[in-house]
């Protein structure tokens, strides 16, 4: 069965610092990959998606993610974090149904 692991439950970064959120998946083939963000009290918003082709994908709000087949990873990055980026981030894989990781909560200090 497909699975998604987000090893970091909680991350704190300073505003202006770079950010990398980790995501590893387990599946035989290359699945469709997604990153979502959830602000407090809100639903999930799609940040970016990977289907095929270029392994570096750009998303909204200045985020990007890199697909690495050899590592079964799809890490999310942002060069300079803003205080408004504080939220919970979910990685998800789809091969048929969508399977979510357990999320990483990002705290941004000023």
């Amino acid at each position: 069965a497909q699975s998604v692991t987000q090893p970091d439950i909680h991350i704190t970064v300073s505003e202006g610092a770079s950010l990398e959120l980790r995501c590893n998946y387990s599946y035989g083939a290359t699945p469709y990959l997604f990153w979502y963000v959830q602000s407090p009290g809100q639903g999930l918003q799609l940040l970016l998606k990977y289907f095929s082709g270029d392994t570096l994908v750009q998303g909204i709000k200045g985020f990007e993610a890199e697909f690495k087949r050899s590592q079964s990873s799809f890490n999310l990055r942002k060069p300079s974090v803003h205080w408004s980026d504080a939220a919970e981030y979910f990685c998800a894989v789809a091969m048929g149904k969508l399977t979510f990781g357990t999320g990483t909560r990002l705290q941004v200090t000023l």
Partner: protein
Amino acid sequence: DVKVTQSSRYLVKRTGEKVFLECVQDMDHENMFWYRQDPGLGLRLIYFSYDVKMKEKGDIPEGYSVSREKKERFSLILESASTNQTSMYLCASSPGGGGQPQHFGDGTRLSIL
């Protein structure tokens, strides 16, 4: 923009009640989904539907049922609410075809007393 609307943001019900959570999408999407979200567990799929009057069990269907009488509306039903069903419930929709991203509503925080 896709709009997925959940009828209530907050809901408080009593044990044993029959509870209805409603979800409407305005983009003519074929697929609709119900998840529950609990701290440390992420999102878990309860039920989904690929077409009108069609439903499929997700990972945790026990204690729930669904109804999809119209394409735009997908209802989640708690037949006899229990305290362990206190949770955040999220509805989502997506176009047909594989690998399409899902669009989410703002969620319903349900408390069962």
